[in-house]
Structures are given as C-alpha cells and as structure tokens.
C-alpha cells in the first residue's frame, strides 16, 4: 500500500513537472508555520527568517487561572532560531526549544532540544491549469542537550546511549489555495523517537489539517489540528489531538502570530507524541510567534 502511494506521488510529480514553466501560486500561506504545524511555504533564495515562538502555561484548569495569571507567569515552551533559503526550493533551519511534552503519567520527553530542519518544495500549485496543489517535504531531527541522569534507568533522561537523545519527524504537506482568501493543507507525517516508555511506541504516523483565512490586508485567521494514529494515544489514556487557532498580523517586515493551543511543545517531535492537555478542561495556552525576514 505504501509503495503504491509512493508511485502515485512520483507519477503526480512527473505529470506536473512539464507544467512548471506556467505561472504558479507563490504564497499559499503567509508564513512557514500555521499554529502548530508547518506550512508548504519555503523561503526565497538568500532570505533569512529569524523566529521566536513562545507558549505560556494553561489558561484555565487545575494549573491555570488567577494563581498563574492565566498562564502568563509560566513558560511552557520557548523556541528561538532561524531558517535560511539556500535556494528557492530548499530551506534549512536551526532552532533551540525548551521542550515541554510528557506522557500522562509524568514521563517527560526530550528537554533542552536542538532541532535541525530541512524543507524542500517539490511542486507548486499553478495559477491556471498546472498542478492543483503545492507539495512540500519537511523534516526535523531533534537532539536533547539535557544533562543525563545516570542513576535512574526508568526515565528517558537516563540517556544510556547517545541515540536516546534523538527524535525525528518527516512530513509531506499538500496544500491548495482555494481562493484569494482561503487555503487548506493536509499533512501526513511520521515521527520516530529512539527511546520511549515501556508502554509507548517508537514510530508514530499522524495526519495534520490546516487552514488560513485572509480577513483583511493585515490580518489572517489560522487553525490546525494534528491526529496521531496510535492504539495507545486515546482520550481514555489521556491524549488529545493538538488543536491550535491563531491570528496572523502582517506588519510588513515582521509577522506576528497570536495563538491558542492545547499543545505544550512547539516542535513536531514534541507536540505530536506528547499532547495530553484537553481544551475542554481549560488546558490550553496563549502563545505567540514573531518572525522577521532579512534579505542577505
């Protein structure tokens, strides 16, 4: 089945390569990320995108409310880093995240994480005719730089081998701009963690859905949701799909994003396996991303 899908993809790519000379839609989304998931957008050649992302604590629920000033006194996850357009198709990046995910029983995922990212635009949607969708691959390799705890073999931070510090994620993004205002994206992905708790699974397929609605020249509404496919990751076991909604503000050189999400981690290797917060219990948080583009 997987081989068939792969061949279909190759045929699709071959079919539309001949149409590459046609005019293409260059901006399906405004930014390289929606709230939680990546978008199909790559940077133009020699553009640098410096990004800072932040997720506060739970707005409501047991750990939120007045005592934490609705989560604003807590930093659940923080990301800082940059991406660079090596070519118009290839974007590479390097980010540092705090790391935030944990299993419902408290088993923590990777912390103090360095993330190397690669994004490659395989296909761009044609304006009239040509490809009906844009297709982009994105991959991340995450490595924890946290100090190991050698005396406790029951926790991930035991790091008995270097490989246990690593987790990876790869995804294909299939997006279409349906009109001048609306864009949709489908994101099948695969996450692999080198070490997991005894009841968990190393490999994890997931499907993300994202959308963007341009509401004025400056403002855009964005939303995405990611479903991991796993017998273990059920709501009965304390896992929930990562659901984010946000507002994008394009001020020219900067792009601000204000968002609310139940995901604690920012990187895919974190929020896909470890989203255990429930919107309906008030366990969602305020967050923001600032993106500044430079021409080099």
């Amino acid at each position: 089945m997987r081989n068939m899908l792969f061949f279909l993809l190759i045929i699709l790519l071959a079919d539309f390569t001949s149409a590459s000379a046609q005019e293409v839609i260059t901006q399906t989304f405004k930014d390289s990320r929606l709230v939680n998931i990546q978008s199909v957008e790559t940077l133009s050649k020699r553009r640098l995108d410096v990004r800072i992302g932040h997720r506060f604590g739970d707005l409501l629920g047991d750990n939120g409310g007045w005592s934490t000033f609705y989560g604003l006194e807590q930093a659940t996850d923080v990301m800082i880093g940059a991406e660079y357009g090596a070519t118009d198709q290839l974007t590479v990046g390097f980010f540092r995240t705090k790391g935030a995910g944990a299993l419902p029983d408290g088993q923590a995922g990777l912390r103090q994480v360095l993330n190397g990212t690669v994004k490659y635009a395989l296909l761009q949607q044609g304006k009239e005719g040509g490809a009906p969708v844009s297709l982009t691959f994105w991959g991340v390799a995450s490595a924890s730089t946290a100090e190991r705890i050698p005396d406790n073999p029951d926790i991930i931070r035991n790091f008995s081998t270097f490989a246990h510090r690593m987790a990876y994620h790869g995804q294909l993004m299939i997006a279409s701009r349906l009109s001048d205002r609306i864009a949709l994206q489908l994101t099948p992905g695969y996450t692999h963690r080198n070490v997991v708790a005894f009841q968990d699974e190393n490999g994890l397929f997931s499907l993300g859905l994202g959308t963007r609605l341009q509401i004025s020249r400056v403002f855009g509404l964005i939303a995405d949701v990611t479903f991991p496919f796993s017998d273990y990751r059920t709501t009965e076991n304390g896992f929930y799909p990562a659901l984010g909604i946000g507002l994008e503000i394009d001020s020219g050189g900067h792009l601000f994003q204000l968002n609310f999400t139940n995901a604690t981690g920012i990187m895919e290797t974190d929020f896909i396996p470890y989203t255990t917060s429930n919107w309906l219990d008030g366990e969602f948080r305020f967050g923001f991303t600032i993106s500044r583009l430079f021409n080099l």
Partner: protein
Amino acid sequence: MKIAPLFIFPAFTVILWCSSCSSDKLPEPMFAATCTDSIPAYDPQVRQIIEETCAYSGCHLDGTAPGVYDSYSGLLPNIESGAFRTRVLQLRDDPNQGMPPDYAPEGRPRDLTQEQLDLIECWLDSGYPE
C-alpha cells in the same frame, strides 16, 4: 554577504543525527512496595507539595536555604545526593533538621501530612518520575 556555508552545519548535523537511529523502550518500572495505587509524578503531585511547603521566599526559592526548588531540575541535585529523602522522611521528627522545619514562618506548614509523606516516599522509590 554569503551565509549559506553557515547552514552546512545544521545540514551535516541532520545527517549525523539520522545515522544514529534506534528503537528502544525503557524497562517497565517496578511498582514500589511503598506505593498503594498509582505512581505520582513531579508534575503536578509533588510540585504542589514542594511549592506549598518548601519553595517560598526565605526558604528553598531565593537561595536562603540550599537548592532552588522552582523546577524538577532544581530539586534533582538534592534528590540524587539523598539529602531530600534524609531530611524529609528519615529526620522528619527532628525539629531543626527535619523538613519542613519547626521554625517555618507563620502560615507555612511545619510538618507534612502522612498522605504527603507516603506520596513522596512512593515517588522517590519509583525513580522520581518527572
């Protein structure tokens, strides 16, 4: 300005990282004899006790007493050295050595409840999960 070469580093890092793949699982943790039903975690069960009884201004928060107990990693050195178990569990009846001490400020607990002590003992015996 050409900065593309700078990004060769993350690209190589990705390749290096991808070359170290494994599919390992942690051992199933032993259910400690001191636990009754489930194993508590630092967050939220132990953290709540710590914040109420240890991590406040003038004690294990601002450097007045050894250790800044505002996070799991702040607590870890005293757990790994055994000092936390000794002072909280073994010396709990000692008015000065037992934590929290009898000289704790007004409004702060000077003793942990038996339920809190049981929870901390189970947590420590279970490998103090985060």
